[in-house]
């Protein structure tokens, strides 16, 4: 009895201190992980909503073509870039630029919209260099004839956010049926 009392008066044992530190560390690491998860999921949802918008933009774009136009001829792939069936989009959150390339008939055209100089269209040009805050997306689409039924074709667009910081990669796929 008197021994325990003396121990209590003289301070904590090293074991007690270490257990306390361990508990505190677990708590702090948990909080830090939660914060980074929150930031990560916010970034993911931002990429996801932008990817969804880009997918519907491409579908709407493809739906304007006449049935005989080459951009909606059957072809393309979702697993590899196929000429005339893919493009790249860069969106900068720093200087507000939207950079886009399209490949038509094998030639890429770049569209760069900035607040300072409006829209600059450059035929036969690729995308400008990216900065760390640039969101980059790759769009591939595939046009399948007589699917799901004879006489119509299905267009499927796959948007992939190629921003490396977010794992796993954000993708968004969307389809439409048209004549």
């Amino acid at each position, binding site marked *: 009895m008197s021994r325990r009392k003396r121990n209590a*008066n003289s301070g904590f044992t090293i074991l007690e201190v270490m257990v306390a530190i361990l508990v505190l560390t677990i708590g702090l690491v948990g909080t830090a992980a939660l*914060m980074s998860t929150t*930031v990560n999921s*916010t970034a993911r949802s*931002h990429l996801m*909503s*932008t990817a969804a*918008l880009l997918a519907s*933009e*491409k579908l*709407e*774009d493809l*739906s*304007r*073509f*006449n*049935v*005989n*136009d*080459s*951009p909606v001829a059957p072809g393309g792939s979702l697993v590899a870039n196929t000429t005339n069936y893919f493009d790249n989009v860069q*969106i*900068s*959150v*720093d*200087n*507000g*630029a*939207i950079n886009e390339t*399209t490949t*038509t*008939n094998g030639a890429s*055209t770049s*569209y760069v*919209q*900035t*607040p*300072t*100089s*409006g*829209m600059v*269209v450059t*035929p036969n040009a690729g995308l400008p260099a990216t900065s760390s805050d640039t969101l980059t997306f790759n769009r591939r689409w595939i046009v399948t004839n007589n699917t799901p039924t004879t006489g119509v074709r299905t267009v499927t667009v796959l948007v992939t956010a190629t921003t490396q910081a977010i794992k796993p990669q954000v993708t968004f796929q969307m389809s439409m049926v048209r*004549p």
Partner: protein
Amino acid sequence: MNDLKRNKAARRDFSSGGFTLVELMVAMTIFLVIGGTAMSLFSQHANLFTTQQGEVGLNMTLRNALQQIQTDAVQAGNGFFIGGATSIANTPVGVTVTNNPGAFDSLTLIQAGTPAVPLSGTGCMYTTSGSATLSAGYGVTASQFSGGEIMFMNYNGNQMTVARLTGATNGAGGTINITYAPTNANGTNSTANDPFGLTLTVPPTSDPDQLTDQFCAASGDYVVALSYVTYSVNATNQLVRTTAATVVTPDIIADNIIGFKVGAATYQGGTTVSSPSYSFNASNAPTATPPGYSNQFTMIRSIRVSLIGRTPKGQFTGSNFRNTYDGGQYRIQALSLVINPRNLSMNDLE
């Protein structure tokens, strides 16, 4: 020995009565270090939160604005399918775009405000005169010709002009007398008398005889009142929506817009001649670099609207963030949308 024990006990009693100055200072130092770290972490996080709030707000603003434009754009060309030889694809009632060199374009979406009302009488009239009489019996009153622009069109839809309406009164026997700013002798207009820009190209390269100033009641030529919605960005960076009813105080769709560009994809007729990409140079010739469509708005089938917005000024004064556009302390976002006004292509797929 006994004394020593007593002394020790006394010292312990004394020391347990409070902290020494050194103990207190060490404790305070540790507290300050930990507290300071926690505070800096909190202030960083608070900043991040403000940034996120601003960005989410901006994203919603841009989405809402594009949604509003889409709602109006899909209506473009409504109410003007006369049937027979006339189809909407031959008229400029639909979409007109003004591409400016800077960051801001303007977009006008047009639809018919009234049914087509034939001219009254038997002979021909000229739009250089500034007045016309419309037939009775089409369920239209003078009040429906209340302002804005009117379009004259011949019976088979291949010749037209437009004029800025100045007045309309109910005439004898249900007819309607309209007055308007006179056009030029070839059916062209000044910009002031054709704010929609429907007669901008003179003569249109695709159809040199499209504009005229002569319309004949005998052959069934008619008049349609046009209603319109114009999107543009004003001097205080607001995206505004102007209609005939809101010319003086346009509706404000979004604040802090620093980029508004409208591209158009065109269709030249036939089966395989849709333009592969969007042109942001409406007045350029198709052979120019970059290619345009010579203001041939009848050829527009699809538009691509791009908006760039920024968070409110001064929101990030606590951060070191500077954008490279003008060094402002705000964040920037960009969104674009493709819209196909379906009315414009209803006559294409043959």
